[in-house]
């Protein structure tokens, strides 16, 4: 085996510069291919006429209703932007506090998971009472964004190399200084990963929030399109929403790409030597964990009770904790059945979404043409609000239980894809050069270097996906499901049986947090093994 020297490496670099396959040609070819298939499908009337040609889909936007669409887009984008700023600022601060004050870390992490898990529809009356109808879209967008940015910031803050921590600790710096000078600079690429996920989520959240009764917006247009059965209007509104999400995603991805050379892309959790020494017994940590949860629960129930009495909240808007408890205790079997059904749907959605997400990311990393074509399409899919996707999916797959799983899988797919893709690019430059110089083939390089470097990222992506899978299943059930916690919630809510509705919402939160915690411990184990 000859050792390949500089020559072949240099030659391939210049070849790539002359033909920028990945960055220009592939996207153009890919998008062109998608448009062609779309036009064929539109002409053939796929999905019982639900699919229209690209020209028909664009017509409402450029035709006589141009003003309406432009006003609607600016209203929704403005709400989404405000939600993104507020949600990510809060999430960033929360993660920073969690990193700086270790005593609060567990509590804040649990609270973030709970905030993420509260189904948006359950939060509606409470939001209306506190914030007023007009801020609905901003509030839902902020909630949608918070979780992604919180988790990614926490991951980022933990990704500074152990050596840097040790140096500063040995020099006698406080925890605060360590956070500011070591952890903070290292977290930007990860924060931007979170923002990348958050931007399309903010659009979807703003649209969902408009369904509370906003006077204008893309959500309002989606609804009127659905009611009047005009497929082209549905497509037009969805395209606008996806387009805005795509632009935001692109900008954030570019910023992140600019930061990676400066800050690196390693995201394994690191522990300082001092913390490792302070480990403590496993029993002690479990007891502390349970105590934190108990304190949190008691605190929240107390706050709930006090708020109802102090603000004179009507039982029609928020029921008393005692009545909710009685309902849960009295109908345990029904709750158990619904929970089991939702968990099953979530599990299937998670497996389906992760499998497809990882597969797509791997193919994208190996075949530049596919990457250039697929990534914009995937981001468009992520930015299209699920409420716009579901009529199409319902017509293609029919109104049956399996469609709920496909809907939920669509929501799980995106985080896994984004994190796997980051991970596959994370192998360090020098290691890649060494292995290539030693004559390794692409496949060998992939299995020896790229995949092991990607595993921590993939696991983080799966952790976020697991946390979202329960909510994804619930959203799918709310739209067209027939069993599960989402159905139980919607049904009771519509009949104004508030204790049952809140009981279902609490069950959703508990299940979601439990799944997220389990995924978190798996992630910690993997990161420990891989760092």
């Amino acid at each position: 085996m000859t050792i390949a020297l500089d020559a072949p490496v240099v030659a391939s670099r210049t070849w790539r510069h002359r033909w920028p396959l990945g960055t220009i040609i592939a996207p153009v070819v890919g998008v062109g291919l998608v448009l062609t298939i779309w036009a064929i499908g539109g002409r053939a009337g796929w999905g019982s006429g639900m699919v229209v040609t690209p020209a028909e889909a664009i017509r409402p936007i450029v035709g006589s209703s141009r003003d309406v669409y432009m006003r609607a887009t600016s209203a929704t984008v403005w709400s989404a932007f405000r939600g993104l700023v507020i949600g990510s600022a809060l999430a960033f601060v929360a993660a920073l506090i969690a990193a700086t004050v270790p005593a609060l870390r567990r509590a804040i992490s649990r609270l973030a998971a709970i905030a993420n898990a509260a189904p948006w529809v359950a939060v509606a009356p409470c939001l209306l009472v506190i914030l007023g109808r007009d801020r609905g879209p901003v509030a839902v967008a902020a909630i949608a964004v918070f979780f992604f940015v919180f988790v990614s910031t926490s991951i980022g803050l933990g990704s500074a190399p152990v050596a840097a921590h040790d140096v500063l600790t040995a020099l006698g710096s406080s925890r605060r200084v360590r956070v500011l000078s070591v952890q903070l600079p290292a977290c930007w690429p990860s924060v931007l990963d979170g923002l990348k996920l958050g931007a399309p989520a903010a659009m979807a959240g703003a649209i969902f929030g408009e369904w509370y009764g906003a006077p204008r917006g893309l959500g309002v247009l989606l609804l009127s399109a659905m009611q009047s059965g005009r497929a082209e209007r549905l497509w037009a509104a969805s395209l606008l929403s996806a387009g805005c999400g795509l632009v935001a995603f692109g900008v954030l991805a570019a910023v992140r790409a600019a930061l990676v050379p400066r800050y690196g892309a390693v995201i394994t959790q690191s522990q300082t030597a001092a913390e490792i020494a302070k480990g403590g017994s496993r029993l002690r940590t479990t007891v502390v964990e349970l105590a934190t949860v108990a304190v949190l629960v008691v605190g929240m129930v107390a706050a709930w009770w006090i708020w109802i009495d102090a603000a004179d909240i009507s039982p029609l808007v928020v029921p008393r904790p005692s009545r909710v408890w009685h309902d849960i205790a009295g109908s345990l079997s029904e709750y158990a059945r619904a929970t089991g059904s939702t968990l099953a749907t979530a599990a299937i959605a998670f497996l389906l979404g992760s499998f497809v997400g990882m597969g797509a990311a791997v193919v994208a990393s190996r075949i530049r043409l596919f990457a250039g074509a697929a990534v914009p399409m995937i981001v468009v899919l992520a930015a299209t609000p699920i409420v716009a996707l579901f009529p199409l999916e319902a017509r293609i797959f029919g109104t049956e239980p399996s469609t709920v799983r496909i809907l939920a899988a669509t929501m799980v797919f995106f985080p896994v894809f984004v994190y796997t893709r980051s991970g596959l690019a994370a192998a360090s430059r020098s290691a890649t050069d060494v292995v290539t110089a030693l004559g390794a083939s692409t496949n060998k390089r992939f299995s020896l270097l790229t995949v092991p470097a990607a595993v921590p990222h993939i696991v983080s992506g799966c952790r976020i996906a697991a946390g979202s899978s329960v909510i994804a299943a619930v959203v799918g059930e709310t739209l067209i499901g027939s069993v599960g916690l989402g159905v139980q919630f919607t049904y009771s809510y519509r009949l104004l049986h508030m204790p049952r509705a809140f009981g279902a919402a609490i069950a959703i939160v508990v299940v979601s947090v439990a799944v997220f915690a389990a995924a978190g411990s798996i992630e910690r184990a993997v990161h420990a093994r891989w760092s």
Partner: protein
Amino acid sequence: MNTYNRRAFIGHSARLMGGAVILGPLVAACGSDDKKTESTSAATSLTTAAGTETTTAATTASTTAGTTASSVASLGKVRTQFNWVADVEWAAWYLGDSNGLFTKYGADVELISGGPNTPAVAQVLASGAADFGVASDELQLIQANKEGTDYVILGAMYQRSPFGYCWLADTPISTAKDLVGKKIGGVQGDQVRIDAVFKVNDLEPDYTFVPMNYDPQPLVDGDADVITAYVTNQPIQLKLKGVETKSAPFSDFGLKSYGDVLFASKKYIDANRDLLVAYLAGLLAGVKANQADPTAVIPLLTDKYGKDAEIDVAYSTAGNPAYIALYDSDFTKANGLLSVDPAYFDSDVLPGYAAAGETDLPTAATLVDTTILADAQKL
């Protein structure tokens, strides 16, 4: 190698983040204030201008004038919450607001649209965000009052609720018995009324529920044999798309109820009686204006109240007459439009809900108050 100053960068980014945290809520507050003033019906400025004109529809030309001789001093503002988006269903309100019919009697109005995710109108009123509500039928109010609210029915826009069934023209359905064993599509929560239709006809509820959303496609595709629908909405929309259907309200199947029931809490009524009398007088005038000219509301809907909702003009023009047909009954011929018959309520409507399994039902004496509307009719 580089002269980059880490400390400066940290300080910089900390200031940026701090700014975002402070700026965010500020921006949100400013933005929503704009929204609030916009959604407050731009009509209030227009009604004062159009105060003299009572028959022609106002255009969006904005002139501000003081109150004219035919308007009385304002008794207050009634925030009205609808249970759906801007639609021709609310024609009477739009005409009343636009033509100054409410301000003529001294009532200012704010018309608030709903949507699919809006909490039930009863909840919106309970949270203090609105004063006067429109409920699709009485059941919501009966259930709300069981949770401790004190809602009272003041009248009803439609003498029969348009809520009912819709099926393809060649499916043979005419009585409740024909529904046995069928696939019935509806939104989560409709099961209560579907079961009620069976029980009121002494039948066991035997059907397959097909969960749907707002797209009537499952009926066209055959996933459902029958769907729940407003007889004034989906059948007309489907006909415009070339699908022939038949439809009938639940009343025809034995489950009688009023439609678009007008209600407020007893506390609010006691505190604002005169305002409500003026409000209902204005609404009555709006109803009569809509009856007189069903096409007058269409430009208001497309250019003003529903301008951001992309109103379907073809549907609205066909739907309005269908709604107007529901205004009249033998009772209204004798007692005026919008009125509710307490005797009919006790003898026909409540038994339907009892057959549906509802317990602790109120009587018309506690749930219905006809005096406010009676006073309004005298104005």
